[in-house]
């Protein structure tokens, strides 16, 4: 299916958020996720189903003031 990942359209075979993160190379990374604007805790990723057209944000620690 096609989902939007950090603003870019990506093709994934995964059907859950946890599997999609693995597929996209963030399996062990220190990241936080939001799906369609709502926070999805790490503990809920395995049960979080993905749908075509979903908007996924994958955020990581970054510089800030």
């Amino acid at each position: 299916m096609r989902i939007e990942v950090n603003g870019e359209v990506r093709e994934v075979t995964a059907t859950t958020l946890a599997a999609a993160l693995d597929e996209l190379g963030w399996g062990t990374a220190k990241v936080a996720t939001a799906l369609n604007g709502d926070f999805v805790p790490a503990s809920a990723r395995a049960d979080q189903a993905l749908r075509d057209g979903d908007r996924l944000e994958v955020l990581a620690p970054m510089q800030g003031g």
Partner: protein
Amino acid sequence: MREFYGVTLDSPLMLGTAQYPSPAVMEAAFRASGAAVVTVSLRRETGGGQAFWQIIKGLGVHVLPNTAGCYSAREAITTARMAREVFETNWIKLEVIGHADTLQPDPFGTLEAAETLSSEGFEVFPYMTEDQVLAQRLVDAGCRVLMPWGAPIGSGLGLNNRYGLRTLRAAFPDIPMVVDAGLGLPSHAGDAMEMGFDAVLLNTAVAQADDPALMAQAFGMAARAGQMAHRAGPMAPRDMAVPSTPVIGKAWL
């Protein structure tokens, strides 16, 4: 000494991590500053986030994640929830921006987000104007730290409204307060601390200095000096001169 949600800080300086020429310069600036708190953000992962996090952890100071760039309570709340998971802290520097030119905090969005986040167990550090009514509403919402601005973010103008800051400080004697944003010089930091604020938070003034580590050290010393001066109890200013050398015993010449 006022505590920040139960934490006593070794230094009254809180320092940001953005805009440095390199990660090594940022690290050197932190070491030189003696800052007790480091501010960080969350952004889309493009590869550098993991290495950056290792550097931050290595600093060994308290981490204060921000919600910088959020223009609505909803955005800020989601960002805060994500930050809590990644940074493993209940501390959140709540920024809900109301205007793109001044980066002035949106008091209504800030209050709305503060209410929700406090109810979820967050320990909120709200970035705010020096408005006393807003301050009371934020305290009512559960905030036990307030962070009034000195001047617009990145402006380096110092304390734009000394009267407002002074009255705010006096109105909430039990609430720890941080002057956040707009500081350009160590003297601004010293000024804020002499007025009785508990800490200062800055970024650009250090990161954009020709020698960030040296400027960081200067800010750390100035903030500390101001803190000591406030504790020491400054003299009251007078309009007329008063001789400091005794008049009695002066010779007739």
